[in-house]
């Protein structure tokens, strides 16, 4: 059946999706275990961010087929969100300042 419409759209073996699905389950279980075992500090943050990035990467690359799109579309969609990181940086700076003023002038601890 597949060969009749072989050149339409995104055609990849079902097996690939099942493997990715399996990995998403494993990674989600891992990130849940981070909380279950009450890991703390730098280890916790780095593990959470690592599992998050891996899961997001798998979903975008395979499930959303970004890995097979042309570079023109990939760049147009994936580069602009990087600007969000700058925004995060600005707001970290801002939040630190707010915390400082609250602690210094409003008697917070």
């Amino acid at each position, binding site marked *: *059946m*597949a060969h*009749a*419409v072989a*050149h*339409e*759209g*995104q*055609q*990849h073996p*079902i097996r690939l*999706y*099942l493997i*990715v*699905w399996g990995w*998403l*389950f494993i990674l*989600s279980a891992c*990130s*849940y275990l*981070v909380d*279950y075992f*009450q890991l703390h500090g730098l280890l*916790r*943050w780095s593990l*959470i*961010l690592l*599992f*998050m990035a891996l*899961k*997001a990467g798998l*979903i*975008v690359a*395979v*499930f*959303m*087929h970004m890995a097979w*799109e*042309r*570079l*023109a*579309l990939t*760049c*147009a*969609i994936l580069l*602009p*969100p990087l600007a*969000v990181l700058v*925004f*995060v940086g600005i*707001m*970290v700076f*801002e*939040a*630190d300042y*707010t*915390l400082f003023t609250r602690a210094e002038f*409003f008697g*917070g*601890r």
Partner: protein
Amino acid sequence: MPDVAPADTQDSMTQPTGWRSLAADWSSDQRAFRSASWGKAMMWIFLLSDTFIFSCFLISYMTVRMSTVVPWPNPSEVFALEIGGTKVPLILIAIMTFVLISSSGTMAMAVNFAYRHDRVRTAVLMLATAVFGATFVGMQAFEWTKLIHEGVRPWENPWGAEQFGSAFFMITGFHGTHVTIGVIFLLLMARKVWRGDFNQQRKGFFTSRKGRWEIVEITGLYWHFVDLVWVFIFALFYLW
């Protein structure tokens, strides 16, 4: 703008690859997204704008959490459920995560069968995706009910920083709305697939244009995005 992405015919031999393809596509003066139809490109651009909306929510959550002098409620305890006398941390959220990932899996396979023009399997898998999505929304409604009973409001809660409630309701509420819209979208498209609209070239009710199997992939893009956003919410709001 043509409906379908033009097939690369004889010029595929001379087409540049890699970074040169980027320059060539963008400078072509016709269409930058050669491999994507307008429908797919527009869905991607919409998703990009939605990314910024969710980013703003998550960044404002980060800002209020960093700047409060009152301790932030521990999500691990707030979202714990009592099962058989023991408190299991975050268990409902973990189940919701698995449900949403499963729905992404069935959606990916639905897209695959759609491109093989397998009407029945595509529709069944899309319906399965919709059922998973509805289950997710149901569990979220349960979670909201539980927290509201425990006294969580956008302006106060029994455990700590007031901002917890507003961040929680805003972020999960907006995400839940997206899931709900996705379920409706899935049901509508599954009906079209089931009826055989794309085989019979039946014209759409709103658009009066013939639909194509590609709509399943476009629906899928939206659905995977909803799952993608949950990955970030799960990591940054529930686990952090």
